[in-house]
Each structure stands twice: as structure tokens, then as C-alpha cells.
């Protein structure tokens, strides 16, 4: 048996115990961008279920609703049935390719700005600052003894964490039922147990992942950082410390005493202090960097104070690093964005989106599926004709009752009737009203002359009789006794 310590490899153990991260408050371009994105994403998440959308009396009026019980998915004017789930698959593929596109273009922008883990961690870190104060106060409090003040502050902070976590879990279930009704039922104890369980689980995960695990999730749990390293190339934007400009580090005093002996970095450590994942960007690109760009804001501020140009830490592609290190000028951003790889991703993304929009516009909302009853295959009628029985599944995907006509073609002399009719009322066509937003099963009897092939293909069609004549058809077989 080898020494267990050897398993950890040359680079140390696979997991390092978490060190507290107490990011300092910062202001700047990217911080403001993060504020905006946070506000928008949180507003979308918490607010969407409450948007109303009138669909008439036969469908729910919630704009976005995943109705699992009735197997319907509503998104504004689009309604998706379970058999149309490929639209959801298409959306997921678009989301995947969209991530590829964004990653190739601007690196881990998803991680830095829009990922829920980032957004909620950011939110919780603002709570930290609100209750405990800024970085230094937080560190002091964390290392200090458990005084009454610390206990009070911790209780208040965790209470706020819990409130946010509960609200987050509570907002999730609103997507799966009518939000106002569910809210009332939730508080009166009438909601389904799965609603309480979901809220409980999501409250717990939000509380733990956002309040305590934070950057550990990104570093140890999330597969996306690892996948992203495969998606990125030399032209993807990275948050880069321009070491050729910054090194060797030295204080302002040294720079004044020995001009030219030190780089632009004054070693103020502000980039480390503001980092929400607690890394030092100056050691180079690393898995812990979610490219939130807060260190760029911090460094720009310091550079402005010491009168040096901004951008010692900045978004920069690997190719440009080489160019700038050699004293050249980086390519304009637009040029890196218009490279073939991104165009291909964007093209695929658009193609899937347009194809889905096109099929959404083309899909019929009246579906027909016909099944030939096989026991018996045919029935000899007393007047010499032959009857076959069929089961029709009429799927009305609109939120209104439909008047439809059922007709046959390719079967001369056919007479149709349903279980509510009879042979005497048989006609060339059958008309009926089918319920809104549901599948109606109809037993259709078709009688046809005995003269004809033993197996004859013909078509049963259905079409709207209420203004919208679009419909569906199905080809099926008519059986007769074999000729004697």
C-alpha cells in the first residue's frame, strides 16, 4: 500500500478547506453592470409567474406556466403539449449553443454575471456588508469572540439569508401552478405536499449554496468551468493582469525614488480584496476566476488615484497578451467577435430558433390519429354492405371548443356514423363539437359496399368548420371478407 499522502499528488490535496472570503465593496463600470444584470435577472425570476395573459375561459391566464398536472406548458401566446416537447429540447439546445457562443466570445461571462450561483452569492454578500460592515469589519467579526453583538448580528444575517432563500424557493413553485391561488393555498395549508417539499428543499439549497458554500460550488461542484476551458480559444476574453506592465511591483515611493525600476502595480492588494472567490488574479488565469471583473474596477480606481492609465487588469484575449507583451496594440474587440467560429455558433443558434418559430407558426392545432379496430376486422351487415370500426383520437389544442367535420376519401359509397348516431343517420360526413384543450375519443363506424379489394387504403380527414379549415388526416385500411 502506497503512502496515502502520495495520492494527493505533487500539487497537494484534491480539496482545500475553505478560507473565508470577505470581498470589499467596490464601485465602477463592471460593478454597475452587475447591479443591472442582478436586478433584471432577479426581477425576471421573482416576477414572471405573476404576469397575467388572457387566453379565454378554457385555459389558465398565467403568462408562463408549467402545468404538470394537465401536461401543458404555457409561455405567453405559445402553448406546448407533451408530444411537442421537442420545442423545449430545441430551447435547451439553443441555451447550450448560446453558452458556447458567449464563452467563445467573452469567456466566462455567464459565470461572472448571469449564473444564479453568482447572482445569489452576490446578493448574500451584500447582506453580509449590510449587517457586518465592509471587508475589515467582517474579518474582525469572524475572528472575534462570540459576544452578544456577534450573536445578534449572526442571527440577523442568517435570518435575512433564510428570508431570501425562502422567497427564492417560494418563487420557484409559482411557475407550476396559478400563482395567486397557490400563494393563498400555501399559507392556508391547502397546497399540495410537493409544493411544501419543493420550497423546503430549495430554501435549504439556496441558504447553503448562497450563504455558505459560495465560490466552493464554482470550484468543486460545477462542471461548467471545466467544460468552458474546452470552449475557449486564444481569442476569448479573459480577465488578465498585464504582468508585463505591472511587474516588478513596487510602491509609489520606490517608483519616485528609482524611476523605471518598478512596474505599474503598486501592490495595493485591492484586486484580491474585492474578489468574490478570494483569488489573486495576478497569479494568472485560474479555475477560481469567474471573470466578474470587479478587480478591473478596483484596479482602475487605484490607477486613477496614482495617475497611471487604466487597464492594468483588464479583459484581454490570449492572442492579445502576446501582442501587447511585444509592445503592439490589441485588436479591436469587434474584430475578435466577427471570427468564423462565433459566426458558426451564431448561425446554428439562429437556425434552430428560426426553425422553431417557423414550425410554431405552421403547426396545426387540430390533430387526428385513427386506429382500426381489429376484433372483428369487418362486420357483414344485413343489407350486404361491410362495416369497419375505427377509434379516432381528435386532439383539439386550442382553448376553445371546435366544430369539426370528419370526412373520408378514397372509399366510394362510404357511410359514416358515430356511437351517438346510427346507420339511419349515416352520411358522407360526420360533424361534431369537440371540447377545448383536450383529446376526444370517437368511435367511428364506416359502412361501404362489399364490392372492392379485401384491403383498401383510404383517408380519414378532419377539418375545422368554424372559420379555420385547417385540419389533419390519416390514411388507414378498410377490410372486406376475402372473395369466395
Amino acid at each position, binding site marked *: *500500500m502506497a*503512502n496515502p499522502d502520495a495520492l494527493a499528488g505533487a500539487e497537494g490535496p484534491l480539496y482545500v478547506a475553505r478560507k473565508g472570503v470577505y470581498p470589499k465593496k467596490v464601485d465602477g463600470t463592471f460593478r454597475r453592470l452587475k447591479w443591472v444584470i442582478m436586478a433584471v435577472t432577479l426581477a425576471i425570476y421573482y416576477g414572471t409567474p405573476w404576469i397575467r395573459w388572457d387566453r379565454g375561459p378554457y385555459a389558465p391566464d398565467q403568462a408562463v406556466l408549467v402545468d404538470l398536472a394537465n401536461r401543458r406548458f404555457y409561455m405567453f401566446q405559445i402553448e406546448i403539449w407533451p408530444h411537442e416537447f421537442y420545442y423545449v429540447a430545441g430551447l435547451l439546445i439553443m441555451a447550450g449553443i448560446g453558452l458556447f457562443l458567449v464563452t467563445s466570445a467573452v469567456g466566462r461571462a455567464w459565470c461572472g454575471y448571469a449564473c444564479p450561483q453568482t447572482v445569489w452569492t452576490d446578493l448574500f454578500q451584500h447582506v453580509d456588508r449590510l449587517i457586518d460592515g465592509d471587508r475589515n469589519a467582517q474579518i474582525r467579526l469572524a475572528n472575534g469572540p462570540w459576544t452578544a453583538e456577534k450573536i445578534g448580528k449572526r442571527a440577523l444575517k442568517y435570518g435575512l439569508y433564510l428570508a431570501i432563500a425562502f422567497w427564492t424557493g417560494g418563487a420557484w413553485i409559482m411557475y407550476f401552478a396559478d400563482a395567486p391561488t397557490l400563494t393563498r393555498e400555501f399559507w392556508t395549508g391547502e397546497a399540495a405536499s410537493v409544493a411544501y417539499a419543493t420550497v423546503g428543499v430549495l430554501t435549504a439549497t439556496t441558504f447553503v449554496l448562497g450563504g455558505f458554500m459560495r465560490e466552493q460550488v464554482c470550484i468543486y461542484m460545477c462542471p461548467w468551468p471545466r467544460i468552458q476551458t474546452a470552449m475557449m480559444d486564444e481569442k476569448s476574453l479573459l480577465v488578465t493582469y498585464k504582468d508585463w506592465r505591472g511587474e516588478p511591483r513596487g510602491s509609489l515611493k520606490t517608483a519616485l525614488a528609482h524611476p523605471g525600476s518598478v512596474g505599474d502595480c503598486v501592490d495595493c492588494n485591492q484586486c484580491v480584496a474585492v474578489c468574490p472567490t478570494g483569488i489573486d488574479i495576478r497569479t494568472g488565469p485560474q479555475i477560481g476566476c469567474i471573470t466578474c471583473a470587479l478587480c478591473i474596477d478596483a484596479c482602475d480606481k487605484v490607477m486613477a488615484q496614482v495617475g497611471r492609465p487604466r487597464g492594468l487588469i483588464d479583459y484581454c484575449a490570449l492572442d492579445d497578451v502576446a501582442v501587447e507583451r511585444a509592445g503592439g496594440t490589441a485588436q479591436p474587440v469587434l474584430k475578435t467577435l466577427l471570427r468564423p467560429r462565433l459566426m458558426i455558433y451564431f448561425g446554428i443558434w439562429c437556425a434552430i430558433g428560426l426553425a422553431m418559430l417557423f414550425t410554431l407558426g405552421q403547426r396545426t392545432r387540430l390533430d387526428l390519429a385513427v386506429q382500426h*379496430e*381489429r*376484433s*372483428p376486422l369487418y*362486420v*357483414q*351487415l*344485413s*343489407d*350486404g354492405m361491410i*362495416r369497419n*370500426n375505427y377509434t379516432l383520437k381528435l386532439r383539439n389544442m386550442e382553448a376553445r371548443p371546435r366544430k369539426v367535420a370528419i370526412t373520408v376519401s378514397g372509399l366510394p359509397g362510404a357511410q359514416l356514423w*358515430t*356511437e*351517438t*348516431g*346510427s*346507420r*339511419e*343517420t349515416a*352520411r358522407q360526413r*360526420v*360533424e*361534431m363539437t369537440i371540447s377545448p384543450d383536450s383529446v376526444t375519443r370517437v368511435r367511428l*363506424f364506416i359502412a361501404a359496399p*362489399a364490392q372492392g379489394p379485401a384491403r383498401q387504403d383510404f383517408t380519414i380527414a378532419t377539418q375545422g368548420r368554424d372559420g379555420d379549415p385547417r385540419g389533419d388526416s390519416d390514411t388507414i385500411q378498410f377490410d372486406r371478407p376475402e372473395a369466395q
Partner: protein
Amino acid sequence: MSDKSRIDEPTGTATVGHEWDGIEELNTPLPRWWLWTFYATIAWAAVYVVLFPAWPMVNSATRGVLEWSSRGDLKAELAAQDARRAPFAKAIAATPITDLPRKHELMEAAIQGGSAAFKVHCVQCHGAGGAGVVGAYPSLTDDDWLWGGDLAAIETTLTHGIRNPDHDETRLNMMPAFGKDGILDAAAINDLVSHVRVISRQEKPSASSARGAALFEANCVACHGPAGQGIRELGGPKLTDAVWLYGGSREAIARTIYAPRNGVMPRWNDKLDAVTIKMLSAYVHSLGGGEDAPAPVLTAQPKGEADNG
């Protein structure tokens, strides 16, 4: 054998202190969590033995204080199923069969229940789809009914059966064996067959059929009607249509006249309860040939008898 525990240098692990010919064993006890899981399973086993059937005895096993058994589970499930069906059964029992079609939900339930009962009691003769067997058992799916095809007539047939020897209320008629009993000779039967083939539009009128018409007038009209259109009340089959229980060829008709089968259907009122019979009637009626169907929704045409043959 030394009894000294020591630290093994290459691994840094303590030995258990035994040594056999220079071979020592490292002391690597089970992880605590594993051990406690193991103890927990032992404790659970003890509880389980008390609660559930566990020890095999000569004829059975210990019953356990919960008195649980898989048979008991099944019994409870069946009872629950019966309880779920009870309201429908009660409502069907209270509804005269002619009113059933007006109560759509009840009719649906009856048809479903009848479908299940049909698979148990009826498929042996009438087939899984109710198509019957030519030459033996009538089809229930066509529009030709010997004793009537409305719900009430079907219910009566099911309840009392046909030609049940031990039952007074059974539907009864008897076709004489014209050939076997020597009522008609072979030539007369041949002429009669010609006539029947003519009225069912399978042959052109001939001298033979003209002679047969006279024989028909003398022997058959009492049950089959003057034109051979059948008499429902007596169960006299219609001879003018395309549906033949025992076949419509010359040979088949001749055979029927020579020695009729006079098929028997068992009565069901001694085996099934009234609700099941009602449900079976609804199901048979729904197979496609049911007469006096519920008022058509899609047309204003008056509805009539379904034998337009």
C-alpha cells in the same frame, strides 16, 4: 508469537500485535460509520422479526404483531376497488336499462364494466370482439338480431337465455327438422333452398324456386313471415338479408332445413347479478349494431329500426 503492537514503518499503521513466522497483520478496523450502519441493520432486523412474518413454522410462518400479509393487501385493494365502484353499481342498479343512454356517464361506466365482464363470460362463444363464429355462434356486432337488438331485448336475452331447458322464462322456439324427421323429401328441400336463395337475392327465380315458394307458404311463414322477413317476437330469423348464422350457401341452407341446430344460450340470471347483466347489455349494444340508439346529437332525423335489409 510476540504480543507487541507496533507501528509498521512503510505504511505508518499500527499492527494488531500477532506475528506468525514473521507475518504480521495491520490493524485497520472497519470505519465507524460502516460499523454503526451494521449495528443499525441488526437492530432493525430484531424489530422486523417482531413486526412482520419472519420465522418459518411447519405450515406457515410467525404472523408478526402487525398481522401483515400480501393476501391481506390484495383483499384490501379489492375491497377499495369495490368501494370505488359501489356508487356506479348502485346508480346502474337503480336505473331502468332504457334510461341508461340518457345518463352519459353511467352508460360509459356500464360499457366499461360490461367490457370486462364480457371477457370473462362471453368470449368463449362470441369471440373477443363479439364477432361470433359463422356456423356456430351469432355475431353481436352486426345489425341483424334474432330476438331484438335494443337494450331491453338484449337484457332479456342475457337474463333468461335462449332455449334453456330448465327455465320457464327462457326465449324459446324450435325449428322442425324437416329432412331428418321426414316432413319434406330431398327434392322439396332443394326447391325450398332455391326459394330462400331467391328472396335473399342470391339467385334468379327459377322453376325450382317457384315450387319452393309454395312449400315456404305452407311450412315456414308462421315463424319466418310471409316474405321471409323474420318475426322478432318469435325469434324467427330474417331470411332476406346478407347475414347468415349458419351460412347462406345452398349446402348450408339445405343442411339447416334438414336438421336445424336450434342453438342454446345459457341464462345468466343464476350466475351474474342484475347490475353485471345490465352492464353486459350496454356493452353488447355498443358493439356497433345496437338498435334504438340514444338520441342522435348530430342530426334531426328520426331514428328507426336498424334492419334495413
